[in-house]
């Protein structure tokens, strides 16, 4: 007979392993982008700011754009002034990709000065700024060359 302590340790190791696998699966971008908006739009979600922001984003985006964002984890915003250019805005952390003819040309980084905006508000912020004043958006953002793996 094994002592109870050994059973306890084995059980804990198994639980930690299962938890790690669950967290790894949840952290996959494609799943993360679909799961979290769903959680945030539930009435029981404990962070009202995120629930409100998610509702506003859903209200502001056309249906196909919102579905695309939930499916892909990013929102494509066409450039109002440069034909063939799209700004790929990620939901969550990451830089905005400038895509031209399917090729990533550069990466942009722009964020609220004060911080603390819910993720959904940040997506909306990028979309509205690009649509309303692309030139200022580009002047304010920091530009980075594309990564070698794009």
């Amino acid at each position, binding site marked *: 007979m094994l002592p109870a302590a050994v059973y306890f340790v084995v059980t804990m190791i198994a639980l930690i392993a299962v938890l790690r696998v669950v967290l790894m699966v949840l952290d996959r971008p494609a799943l993360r982008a679909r799961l979290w908006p769903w959680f945030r739009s539930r009435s029981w979600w404990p962070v*009202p*700011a*995120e*629930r*409100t*922001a998610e509702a*506003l984003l859903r209200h*502001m985006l056309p249906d196909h754009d919102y579905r695309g964002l939930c499916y892909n984890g990013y929102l494509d915003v066409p450039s*109002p002034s440069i034909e063939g250019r799209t700004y790929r805005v990620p939901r969550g952390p990451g*830089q905005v990709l400038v895509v031209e003819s399917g090729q990533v040309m550069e990466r942009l*980084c*722009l*964020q*609220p*000065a*004060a911080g*603390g*905006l*819910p993720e959904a*508000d940040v997506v*909306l*912020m990028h*979309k*509205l*700024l690009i*649509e*309303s*004043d692309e030139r*200022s958006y580009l002047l*304010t*953002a*920091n530009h980075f060359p594309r990564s070698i793996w794009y």
Partner: protein
Amino acid sequence: MGVLRILSHHGDDRVVWDQTAVDTSTEAQAAVREAERIFAEQRAHGATAVKVSPGRPAERIEKFDPYAEEIVMIPRVVGG
């Protein structure tokens, strides 16, 4: 209804007024004055004001428009 939305860490704060009664109702005028005050305050802090209408691209505005359907105030942004 006209709506002024302020993106913030609360999600969004909003002021609503009846844009069809701006010239006639004192209640609507009071709401517009409040929205105008918040608009000016946010602009002074570096916020960008964007007018949004369904089916049309967002439009940056410098002055408060009481007849706008929806105005979104975006807090000051910086390069990251």
